[in-house]
């Protein structure tokens, strides 16, 4: 959670920046994508997803993961998100 006080005592953090940071956080949530990759595999293993569905989703998620990891690396130190 954001600490509202932080926003009051740190006027250099504009609301737009905060919203932007939150969007980045959500868009490039590497851990969440990794969890989705594991879930996809589990659902394939227990027979809830066909091999085709599994492969398609996996390709998509791996692409997302690459983008997220690259974005995180590029943004390192530029965006601070307090929780």
């Amino acid at each position: 959670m954001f600490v509202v006080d932080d926003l009051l005592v740190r006027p250099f953090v504009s609301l737009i920046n905060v919203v932007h940071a939150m969007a980045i956080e959500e868009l490039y949530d590497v851990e969440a994508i990794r969890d989705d990759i594991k879930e996809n595999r589990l659902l394939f293993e227990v027979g809830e997803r066909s091999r085709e569905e599994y492969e398609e989703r996996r390709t998509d998620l791996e692409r997302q993961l690459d983008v997220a990891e690259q974005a995180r690396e590029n943004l390192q130190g530029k965006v601070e998100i307090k929780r």
Partner: protein
Amino acid sequence: MASTHLYTYGITDDADVAFETDGVDGATDVYAVEHGSLAAVVSDSETMEPDRSDENLRAHDDVLQELLYRDGGRTVVPMQFGMVFKNARALKGVLRGGRRAFRKALNDVEGRVELGLKILADEGATVDRESIVASVTERLEPVSVSEAENGLFSDRLVLNRSYLVERDDRAAFDEAVDGIIDEYGETFTVQYTGPWAPYSFVDIEIGAQR
């Protein structure tokens, strides 16, 4: 031609390892690099960063499985996927630096295997997680040496645990899992996997240069 590096599967105390198999990145031969009383089980690799493909991940695990059961079976401390050393000298340096940790890990897992249990609910189902976890714990604790909580990476996962089990207790553990499947198999998907090399029960950080 690219130089040959050493892809490492695990550590054993048995230097007498050499067999043909389907290893990581198309390797066909697995052998041991010995240092003192420890041996790293390796195959030759052209790359320091093997692809994390399903095929390679499966090959890594298949080699560990073979080590667990081949020639009467042996104790193995598994390496994470992707541990490649530049050459035998670098690998031996790690064996030397980590010998106490490896020795302790080998003792901890000797004669034991890892088994995995996942319980998966239907999408959107209401679940009394606490009672299921309590029931599973009650059934499996007496027939296992140790348990490790794994992440609930899906909202649908009710339980995700690994168990360290004495090889001699496998039948009793299987029977206890049958009881869980009888109790929950109608309502939930119960996934029972293994035996695996004891990935979840060794935790060694290697800080040396690969």
